[in-house]
């Protein structure tokens, strides 16, 4: 087996997943080729890091820290009073706007019922429609012309 072939198989040789025949060929080559042997050593070293990194330190109240973080996040997520008031004010403005709109629409379309409207004395004199209704005035004039 030449160097390039050995390089292709080396990682599998190191992890022990190469079949017997190939494994023996690689082994033989490594015994004779110092540069491939050096590469194999380094590859073994780098892959050996994994075993070291798999060791996890003891628990320093990891769960406690996460639970505390979760509670603090929930607090920061909870809506403050100012936001609630802001939303309430916005809702009030919208409701007021809707009612005003409905009432204006009633007046404009003439569906508003003024028959039950009671007018005070002061209002009566101030409100000249009652003294001389425009509609009846025009109607009279129109009749006279006819």
């Amino acid at each position, binding site marked *: 087996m030449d160097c390039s072939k050995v390089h292709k198989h080396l990682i599998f040789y190191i992890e022990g997943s190469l079949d017997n025949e190939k494994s023996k060929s690689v082994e033989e080559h490594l015994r004779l080729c110092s540069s491939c042997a050096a590469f194999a050593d380094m590859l073994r*070293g780098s*892959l050996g890091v994994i075993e070291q990194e*798999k060791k996890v330190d003891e628990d320093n109240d990891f*769960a406690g820290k996460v639970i505390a*973080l979760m509670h603090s996040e929930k607090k920061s997520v909870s809506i403050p009073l100012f936001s609630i008031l802001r939303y309430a004010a916005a809702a009030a403005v919208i409701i007021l706007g809707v009612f005003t709109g409905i009432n204006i629409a009633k007046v404009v379309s003439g569906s508003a019922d003024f028959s039950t409207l009671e007018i005070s004395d002061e209002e009566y004199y101030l409100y000249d429609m009652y003294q001389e209704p425009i509609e009846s005035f025009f109607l009279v004039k129109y009749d006279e012309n006819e």
Partner: protein
Amino acid sequence: MLFPVSNRIKVQETQNRYRVANNSNNKEEKLIKRLIAGEESAYRQVMDKYRQPVIRLCRGFTGSSDDAEDLAQEVFLEVLNSIEKFKGHSSISTWIYRIAVNKSLNFVRDRSKRSHDNYTREAYGESNDGNSYSADKRLTQKEHAEALHNALDSIPSAQRTAFVLSKYEDMKYYEIAEVMKTSVSAVESLLFRAKKNLQERLFEYYKKNLE
């Protein structure tokens, strides 16, 4: 007519396995209910069980124990905050692993976007000054780790995920396939290519640094 003894043993084994699976499913269901109810003891139970695997997995992706610990905290925060979204299509461990893999991949992607140049220089800084190993042509543990993680960072994320799950978690092919939502044969192929690529990158690294 009675079945042969060997068959009866097989049936019994299957029944036992089914019973064990059922029991663990029931336990998991109860645990999930307790998590949804916000029981602190359930939170602790989950973290006690999965803290080590999750940190190990994150370490495999990040190459740093501090980053792995921080990421693991984020993983469990997400697990606890979104437990109601868990539909039970997989086991809770698979779901936790998926969250850990996604968080780790995002972290590594952000890190490489943020400071790719700095990170590479930092990682190879010691190697380039020629003092640390040129005399005996041997790499220190730290340099081996840097070489490995730089090589891992340079391979496609699916290959990296399969490799980390296999090597850091000692997962079997079918378990990796479950986490990655793919087939066993796809996992085999991903692992094969991951090892090949990793070996090439490491070889380039050694060649560059030892010549």
